[in-house]
């Protein structure tokens, strides 16, 4: 733990929209922010008629560049001549228009919080090194991404070549962007067919992934659709009658639509499996395998997760063709998260939680319980104690689930009580405290729960309320993860989770 960092700027509570960046006005609709920008652009265009000719020239260069890039990606083995022309064109484009398009970016304020080596131990690449489309680069920078994280450095170039990938990286280190950026780059926006499918195990994760894709593709004309259970099937079918380039969803819903011919996958060249080990568990694997058979034989499969049990090897051998295996984990747990246990009796848990609320400096917190009933009762009690608190579990109406998901991620509420519905993949940058009110039974559940804090290399705190019956699970999980969970001290230094 690096204590020499003098920068103790505290991240304001309620901030956190997507990865690596935040929206200064969370309560407002982000679309509304774009209206003044559009007006401004229009005004600038009208005010400066002499630049009309330059605009046309830039468009010509852009179109030429797109054709070159398309050719390069379609052919895995590019000739040297094409590469040379590519460099020339790229250099020309940068020379003529780099100042213009970079100056027009709406980059959010830089995140000055401390980041651990989990995301800073890179080779020093920039997003521009991958010869991405300019509009995609604009989307990347305007979302707050500054430079690639280690998993993005490793996987983006390989994904662009068309290879299958089996990649594992720690929680919150940029895996979603690692597959969304290549997916958006390879989509031909003039071809109105589904070209990429992204599979995720939960509906909330589907919403989140879809939003990341839409924000990155802000300047592209790519239609991103999400389809999961719980929403109107009729509405989703209606949406599929319109152009869709990228489809995000859960396996069961997409399979049902594919079987009925509503969702046509014969032109889908890329399949992404996020949280791949969960997607290969017994309840998902039959749907996954049927979906793969709906794809063309030339499909590319990308698999990402933070945990990979041995059962993944069988699937990898059967469906992935010479996959590029990326493993960036020499340990399972995040470097920035400090873990404590509080050995309590069952009747002391709420008292202990109340003490934690009064002592800890919480930006946003997620509190995990093991049953639906306990989630609702605990959320009600926390609200009565005077803390704003939402709850979410799988038995709620989908409309309510969506509302809680959206509002909590935008900082409308400070605390969230949930079941393991929120254990995997949920990315909320402002969450710096995770409390296991009920202790999990499995090591990967513990790993994913704790990974809800410390997003993108930031610092985080995990507190586990352990009862007498939980202690053997504690020992086993410590051993399986190779980590150490210490007793919680009376006072916790804020520098270990708030910097």
């Amino acid at each position: 733990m690096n204590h020499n960092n003098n920068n103790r700027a505290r991240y304001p509570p309620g901030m956190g929209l997507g990865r690596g960046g935040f929206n200064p006005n969370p309560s407002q609709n982000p679309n509304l922010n774009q209206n003044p920008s559009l007006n401004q652009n229009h005004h600038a265009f009208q005010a400066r008629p002499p630049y009309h000719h330059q605009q046309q020239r830039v468009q010509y260069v852009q179109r030429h560049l797109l054709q070159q890039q398309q050719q390069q990606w379609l052919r895995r083995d590019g000739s040297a001549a094409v590469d040379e022309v590519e460099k020339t064109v790229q250099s020309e484009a940068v020379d003529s228009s780099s100042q213009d398009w970079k100056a027009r970016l709406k980059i959010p304020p830089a995140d000055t919080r401390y980041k651990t080596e989990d995301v800073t131990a890179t080779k020093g690449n920039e997003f521009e090194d991958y010869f991405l489309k300019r509009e995609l680069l604009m989307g990347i920078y305007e979302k707050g991404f500054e430079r690639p994280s280690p998993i993005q450095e490793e996987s983006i170039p390989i994904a662009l070549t068309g290879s299958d990938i089996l990649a594992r990286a720690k929680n919150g280190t940029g895996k979603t962007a690692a597959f969304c950026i290549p997916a958006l780059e390879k989509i031909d926006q003039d071809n109105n067919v589904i070209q990429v499918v992204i599979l995720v195990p939960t509906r909330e994760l589907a919403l989140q992934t879809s939003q990341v894709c839409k924000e990155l593709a802000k300047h592209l004309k790519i239609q991103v659709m999400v389809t999961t259970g719980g929403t109107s099937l009729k509405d989703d079918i209606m949406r599929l009658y319109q152009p869709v380039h990228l489809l995000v969803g859960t396996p069961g819903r997409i399979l049902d639509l594919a079987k009925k011919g509503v969702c046509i996958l014969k032109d889908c060249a890329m399949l992404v499996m996020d949280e791949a080990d969960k997607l290969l568990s017994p309840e998902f694997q039959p749907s996954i395998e049927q979906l793969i058979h709906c794809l063309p034989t030339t499909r590319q499969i990308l698999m990402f997760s933070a945990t990979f049990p041995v059962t993944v090897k069988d699937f990898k051998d059967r469906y992935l063709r010479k996959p590029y295996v990326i493993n960036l984990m020499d340990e399972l747990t995040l470097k920035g998260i400090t873990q404590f246990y509080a050995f309590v009796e069952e009747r002391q848990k709420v008292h202990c939680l109340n003490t934690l609320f009064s002592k800890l400096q919480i930006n946003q917190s997620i509190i995990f319980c093991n049953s639906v009933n306990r989630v609702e009762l605990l959320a009600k009690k926390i609200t009565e104690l005077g803390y704003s608190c939402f709850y979410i579990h799988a038995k709620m109406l989908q409309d309510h689930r969506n509302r809680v998901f959206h509002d909590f991620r935008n900082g409308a509420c400070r605390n969230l009580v949930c079941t393991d519905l929120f254990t995997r993949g949920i990315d909320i940058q402002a969450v710096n405290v995770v409390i296991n009110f009920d202790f999990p039974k499995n090591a990967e559940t513990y790993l994913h729960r704790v990974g809800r804090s410390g997003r993108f290399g930031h610092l985080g705190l995990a507190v586990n309320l352990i009862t007498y019956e939980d202690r053997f699970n504690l020992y086993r999980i410590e051993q399986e993860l190779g980590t150490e969970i210490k007793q919680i001290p009376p006072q916790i230094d804020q520098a270990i989770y708030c910097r």
Partner: protein
Amino acid sequence: MNLQQAGQPKSSNGYGHRKSEREGATKSENKILSGKLNANRLANAGAVTGSKGGSYESPSHDRLVYVTTCLIGHQVEVQVKNGSIYSGIFHATNTDKDFGIILKMARLTKDGSLRGQKSGTEFVSKPPLKILIIPAKDLVQVTAQDVAITRDGLANESHHDMHQEIMVDSLISQSRHVDLGRELKPWVPDEEDPQCPELENIFDGHWNRGWDQFETNEALFGVKSTFNEELYTTKLEKGPQTRELEKQALRIAREIEGEETQDLHLAEERGLHLHEAFDIDEETRFSSVYRGKHVDDSGFDEDILFDSHNSETFGDETFGGVFGSVVKRPGEISGGKGNDGARTLANSSSMDHTQSCQSNTCVDLSRSGSYDHAKQLASELPAKSYSTSDGESRIQENLNSNQHGDNAITKEENPIQAEEDVQLSRSEDSQGPLYSKKDGSDKGVLSPNASSYAPSSHTSSKTHEKMGSHGDLIEGSASGKANGETKSVNSRGIPSGSDLVGGIAASSVPGLSPSSSVCSLSSEKSTLNPNAKEFKLNPNAKSFIPSPARPPTPVSDGSFYFPTNVTTVPSMPGMPVGIGIGPTFAGPQPIIYNPQVAQMPSQGYFHPNAPQYGQLLGHPRQSLYMPSYLPEMQYKGRDY
């Protein structure tokens, strides 16, 4: 012919002297151990087990075991006491109370016992030994280069493999050792915040379905929802032009929702709730991954493999020697040559089975402890280079610890025990690999050799009679013992030129000349024949006190080293003093000259011995060999 004749007297002299040492050792051992320990197999095994248990408790011993385990498979250079240096592959260690090592493909790179360029050149050009056993008392230093023994070094190696293969969770976490069952300290509420009765038992009541989190949060904290589905998915176009599509979509939707399925995920996505019927909790639904009955990430399979491997190793080390000698006896009794080979193989298999059964219990206990120690070592070892020469001093600490721990045994007796263990383990270690490597023809050669000595029991009795006589002389002369020790060291440092000869030497006593195996085999013969045993003991009543139960041959071999240890122990106090070194160095000076002269003829003796040994298959040659043996013995007596 003349050279050969001159060489024989020296060889027989050395042989006879060594035999006398053994006889004396037997007598002394009987006096010391009589009434305290049963001189049988069971008691001996118990003693060995006790020693192992004691040594496992020493932290420095654990570190030594760890470092030597890291050296296994690596090229090392070993320096022995006489200054010779061997280079070879580190194969195994004997860590039972002492520290001997075994090298494979060992080559003598520097000969400290010989002087002169010519002799050195001859030794260097010899082929490497397939197996070289270096006992602890000869071991000075082990040198190895570029061997990773620290956790960081090992981790770096595994990191390279990381990009080649998918790493499952158990490999990454490396099942780090956690203190299972450690005491958890209870959480204590702050003094300023005493017990709050209103915070207890909130889960006992029933859930009030009327509570609306959105209304409550809006009322209390002003929270308002801003959810808009267009932030997450495509915009839904509606209007008159899409009415037909809407009807079609509704029809398809009803078809999908109306289908039956047992797939939990498909059912959930269609709006059915099968999870409630199966009572599956949400951790199982959304987070954990079911692995099935036979898949285990915790590394349990590795433990099984580890135990199996150790079972084989442990079995060989403990019982190989004993059953190896047992295998010989049926061969001797058998008649035909072909049957000898077949029966020997059959007996060997049978013995292996018995061996495994007997060692089952011991394996579990000792290997389990060893495994635990290995785990601790991996985490405790400091990150710095480790020299095995330090291990030698630590071995001394272990010896002292043993002496202090065991009050029943005197100081003099403890070295005897250590020596016996070394001797026993040495024989056992060398015998297993040799037997497994020899082909049928080799075994065929050995069996006739054994049977050819069966009719010579009478000669054997005479030999023992003379040995008893010389034993008396040894007891009265300290300088005589010193000479014996010096010769022993010199002869042990000479590598054998022939695998066959080396094999024979290794199977009985390493470093001894092939002639000594004659007596060894004869001893076994006498133990098999009750009549011969009674006959042999009775005439020698004058020389030593007979023991009602004779110990097994391997133990008996170890006991012959007693005089050497007796000589060594008094010398130890003198070593720290500088004055003592002078006389010791000057004393052996003229003696070293004699062994040097003896060794040259000794080598010559080997060359004619090979064809003569082959000729032993014929009956007439045997008679020729024996008459020439007896006169040499007489010559040795006169010289002494």
